[in-house]
């Protein structure tokens, strides 16, 4: 190699080492791109698996437990609230495209704070405590969730297609928006179909 060649080698080597030495200083001034920010929400059955969910339910029979899990990937600490709602198969679910929560009243709720990357799972047991059947209509008067009794007075017609009196427990994820200083629907929800049976 000629002297010119060695000079280029020294220059390039020095430049690379200089850049390496500069990286800590640059990281203070410039922020490097971050990954996608999101929250996870899931629902697991009694065995902590994505199976064994309660489905056929009878009045007075305790169901569950089911586990609702949340993981924070938002880049900083978050205040989450999971709102539990109950509907029949004709009522509205949250609107995912318009980021609208279901207009149905909240029954139970869980609130917690999670650091970035942290996961939390809450346990929930429930029972339909007061139900009646009249022809092709069933009426649920009360539902018990984690030992709190909620009046619901909800009726469901017989679903001819799926052969059952269908209801749904669903869990909406809400997040505290520090800019708006209020809880906002975080556009995540999980559902649990229930078939109300007579016997």
């Amino acid at each position, binding site marked *: 190699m000629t*002297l010119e060649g*060695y*000079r280029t080698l*020294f*220059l390039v*080597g*020095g430049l690379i*080492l*200089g850049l390496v*030495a*500069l*990286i*800590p*200083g*640059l*990281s*203070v001034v410039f922020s490097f791109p971050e990954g996608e920010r999101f929250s996870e929400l899931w629902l697991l059955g009694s065995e902590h698996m994505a199976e064994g969910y309660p489905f056929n339910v009878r009045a007075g029979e305790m169901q569950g437990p089911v586990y609702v899990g949340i993981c924070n990937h938002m880049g*900083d*600490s978050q*205040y989450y*609230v999971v709102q539990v709602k109950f509907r029949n198969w004709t009522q509205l679910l949250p609107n995912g495209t318009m980021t609208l929560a279901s207009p149905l*009243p*909240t*029954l*139970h*709720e*869980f*609130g*917690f*704070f*999670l*650091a970035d990357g942290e996961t939390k799972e809450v346990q929930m047991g429930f029972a339909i405590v007061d139900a009646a059947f009249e022809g092709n209509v069933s009426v649920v008067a009360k539902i018990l969730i984690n030992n*709190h*009794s*909620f009046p619901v007075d909800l009726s469901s017609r017989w679903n001819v297609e799926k052969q059952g009196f269908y209801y749904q427990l669903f869990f909406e994820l809400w997040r*505290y928006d*520090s800019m708006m*200083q209020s809880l906002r629907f975080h556009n995540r929800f999980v559902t649990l179909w229930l078939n109300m049976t007579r016997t």
Partner: protein
Amino acid sequence: MSGLRLVAVLCVLFVLVSSVFVLGVTASATESEAVSAVEGAEAAVAEAFGAVLEAERAGGNVSELLDRLDVAAAYLATAKVCVRTGDFAGAVGNAGLCVEALEGLVKDAAALRDTAARASVQRLWITTSGSVVGVVIVVCGSFLSWRWFKQRYSKRALTMKPEVADE
């Protein structure tokens, strides 16, 4: 005698009517009390969370503060559930526990934020000056080693004997 009896009956009636009235007022007062207690607790949680977020953004380790907030959030959720189920006394109690769990948290978060901010400035100086010193060392080192290499190269080139290559 009949007059006394009439007075006694009137007294009993008065007590019954007034107790019903008082109970009614107490029940409605308890409901509004529960709602305002829950609102107060919500505001306290929001304020505390704001302070914790500031501390976190300043670079502080907020895991202990988050644990305390988590306890408060659980009480707040229970208080809201109690309002929905009509257990107003339970709602007031849980809202009180929520506020209690947050006691001193804003102050602690502010102290952590200040400490973290100072540490962050210190870290910034160390990192920046470390980087500058590193770059200066690399530049000087490269230049000196190049000079040393060049001298050695020239010396070797001068001491080399010319050779005639076979054609």
